[in-house]
Structures are given as C-alpha cells and as structure tokens.
C-alpha cells in the first residue's frame, strides 16, 4: 500500500454556502462527502481528512532568518487554494485515481492526487 494526499481546491474568496450556490446543495455535498469518508474507512483506505478555513485566514511564517518573518495571507497568491484534503492508503495510482474521482464527485471540487515520499523515493533523491 502507498500513501497519497488528495487535495481539494476551491476559490480563495468563498461565497455564502461556499461554491455550492444554495443551502440545500451545500448540505447535499457535505452529506455525500460524509458518505465517501465512511466508505474510505470501511474499505481500509482512510488515514486522515479534514476541511480548511478560508485561505484569507492563513498566516505565512518564514523562520529561516534570525527572527521569524510573519505575513498576513497564504504563501502563494492565487485565485484558488487548498480547501481540504484526504490522506489515503491505496494499492497504486490507479486505485488512488478511482478514489479521487469518487471524492471529487462527492465534494463537487477538482482534486489533486499526489504520492507521499517513501523510503525509496527519498533514497532516489539522495542518490540522484
């Protein structure tokens, strides 16, 4: 099994009811997402999942210098930001993509599938 992060992207500025349009549509998306989470747990894919508050509430911190520099806002300026994520276990990319398609349908947003580093991929980087 390999570990993947499924990142959900959405607009930086959230409308009332998020990007869903109406209270009913938002409720349905949340219910579908909940059902998808249950399916992940039931089938042994679930590691962690959560949604994030809007990107404008983020603070960027750079501690590389002598004293940390603190800036208001997200690290990258963008119209769309990470809005939530799943961490899942899947046999391979095909399975991860199939799960991401289900999750995307449930939460009504596009999803980026990205593998976590493994011992092997870290070593490949060190050897390169």
């Amino acid at each position, binding site marked *: 099994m390999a570990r993947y992060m499924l990142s959900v992207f959405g607009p930086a500025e959230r409308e009332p009811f998020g990007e869903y349009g109406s209270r009913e549509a938002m409720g349905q998306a949340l219910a579908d997402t909940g059902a998808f989470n249950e399916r992940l747990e039931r089938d042994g894919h679930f590691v962690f999942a959560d949604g994030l508050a809007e990107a404008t509430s983020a603070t960027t911190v750079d501690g590389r210098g002598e004293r940390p520099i603190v800036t208001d806002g997200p690290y990258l300026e963008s119209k769309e930001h990470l809005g939530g994520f799943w961490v899942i276990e899947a046999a391979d990319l095909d399975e991860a993509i199939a799960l991401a398609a289900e999750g995307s349908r449930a939460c009504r947003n596009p999803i980026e*599938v990205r593998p976590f580093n493994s011992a092997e991929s870290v*070593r*490949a980087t060190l050897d390169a």
Partner: protein
Amino acid sequence: MIDQAGLAIARAHRSEWSRVVAGLARRFGDLDLAEDAAGEAFLAAVERWPREGVPPNPGGWLTTTATRRAIDRLRREEQRHGKHEAALMVFDDSPPEPAGAVDDDRLRLLFTCCHPALAMEARAALTLRLVTGLAVADIARAFLVPESTMAQRLTRAKRKIRVARIPYRVPSEADVGERLQGVLTVVYLVFNEGYLAGSGAEPVRRELTDEAIRLGRLLRELRPDDGEVAGLLALMLLAEARRPARVSPSGELVTLDRQDRAAWHRDLIDEGHALVRERAATGEAPGRFQLLAAMSAVHTAASTARETDWPRIVALDPSPIVRLNRAVAIGEVHGPGAALAEVDRVAVEIDGYHALHATRADLLRRLGRRDEARAAYDRALELTSNAAERAYLARRRDELDE
C-alpha cells in the same frame, strides 16, 4: 561473418527489444533497470556475436544476458545500501489469466507507457524508447527538441511511474477498452507527428511513421480481435502507401486528387484493404479509426480521383474530422455550396484545425468568393508550420489574384 552478425543484431533489436524490456520490467519492477540492462545486453551482442557467432536463439540469449546484467547491478546496489531493496514499481506477479484475457508483458509495458496520468508527449517518448527501442537522440531529433530535454522528459516520466506507483499491468476488463483507446491515440499521434510533421524542414519524418506502424502491428498481434486496433493499423498503412506521391520533387504537398497513383505502395494498400474488409465483415459498429480507415480505403480503391466512390464516403459517419472529410465528398456529389454548408456546421468544434480552413478556402474559391477564400487560406497558414503544406497553401492563395 561480421555482416551476418550485424544483420542478426539489427533483426533482434527490432523483434526482441520490447520483449526483453517488458520481461525485465515485470521481473524487477523497475523500468530504468530494464531499459539499461536491455541496452547492455545488445551492446554485449555487438561485441560477441561477430566473434563467437550468432546464438541459435538470439532472443533467449539477449533475455538471459540482460537478466544477468540486471541481477549484477542489483547486487552492487544492495552492497552499497547494505540491504535488499524490494521491487520498486508496482507489478502484477499473478500467473497469466486463462485463455481470452491478455498475458503479454509487452501489453503491460504499453499500458504503463501510455498511462493517462502521464503527459501526452511523455507517453509518446516513453513508448518510442521502451517499446520500440528508438535511441534517445533519435527521439529528440524526431520531436525537434535537444537531446538533453528529451532525456530529462524520459527520466521524469520514469520517476513519476515509480514514485506515484503507476502500475505495470493490463487494466481490468472494465477499463481496458478506454485505456486501449488511449494507447491507440498515442500511436496515432506518433504517426501524425511523422506524417504531417508539424514543423521543421522535412515534410515527412519516416523514423516516426515507421515506428508507429511497427507499434500498430505489435498491437494487432497482441489484440487481434479489437476493431479499433485493426482500424488504426489500416489507416496508417493506407496513408503510408500514398507517401511516395504525397510530396512533389520541389517539396510541395500534392493533394490526393493530383497524386500519381502508380507511385502508391500496392502491397500496403492491399494489406490495409484486407483489414478494412475484415472489420466490415464482423458487422460490429465501427469506431473512429475504423471509419477513417474505411474512408481511406474508398479513396485508395479508385484508380483515378474521378472514379472515387464519393456517395460511399458520404454514407460513412461522423466525428467533426470525419464530417470535414465527408464535406469534401458532399462537394463532389452535390457541389461546393452544399459542402461549405456542411463544413460550416462543424467549424466551431475544430476551429484550430488548419485542414478546416484549407477546405473552406478551397470551397470558397470554387464558389468565386475570393476575399473570403484568401482570409481562409491565411487562417490555415497561421495554423500549420509544415513546410510542404505551407508551400501548397501559399501558392493556392496567390493564385486567387491571377
């Protein structure tokens, strides 16, 4: 003797490369290792066959040699890292499926190289390198990029396969149809990249068309009952057959109606026609490649352009590109006005396709609407960088003023 060995090596490279790479990839789960070990085995053949003679079973010799090289390399790495490394890529170790399902390593290799999670240009490059064994320098030249760029593209793609765990297996029955379409699209892209060479001075890049046809034949061998596999092979063969007549000695594109049909490759036409007949005999609904091949078969069946069975082409139906070709046929049956109406119906869908504007330009010219024809030729010229097509379009545009 040396010549004989050289010939045997060239033959083995064509017929055995993909088998050796695919077998090693399944056994060791690492495409890099498979590619390097296969390369070393062929180098060993170059060294030893002229001296020791060609082995009775060249493919077996190459597989054994490559496997030994791969194991040697793994042992060295094991020592370096002080532990045994488990297979790196996800691979399917299950025994071959019973009759009917596919169990060929080369098919797994094709599906991995053409995985939808890879960029289209990476899919084409990987397929040419790992399945047909084209050298990195040759692939780079064919796609008109520096060799270092192509090498990096290949390295990055192989690394993604490993790190993201793109599996090395034939997709499930539920997905195999769609994924096979993806493989065919990559092969057709390689063919068109060669046949309609998008840019550069050479109007046709044969290293690409040749490799695409080889891939088409390989797919046909692996999936003999698939209609679209047969359709794509037929389509490529019928296009390749016309290649000698397609570009004039001065390097200008010669349109189908003016080509010297005696210069066409008769054997390729016969082979393409046989495939089209085979598919028609099944009575199954044809897909995109079978339709294009069927049209191409009607064109190549006529001994002169005038004898083309246009009503038959009109009867074959209709993706936007197919409908564009159909519009040309309508023009022959019902005149340029009717054809232009059909072209304009598909125009929105394929506005970025230069052939749409070239076709419109020709129909407008025949209708005497010269200003509109000139604008359409200009638009077609904007959209193609192929030298032969540009020469043809520019001449037709300039003839409007005569």
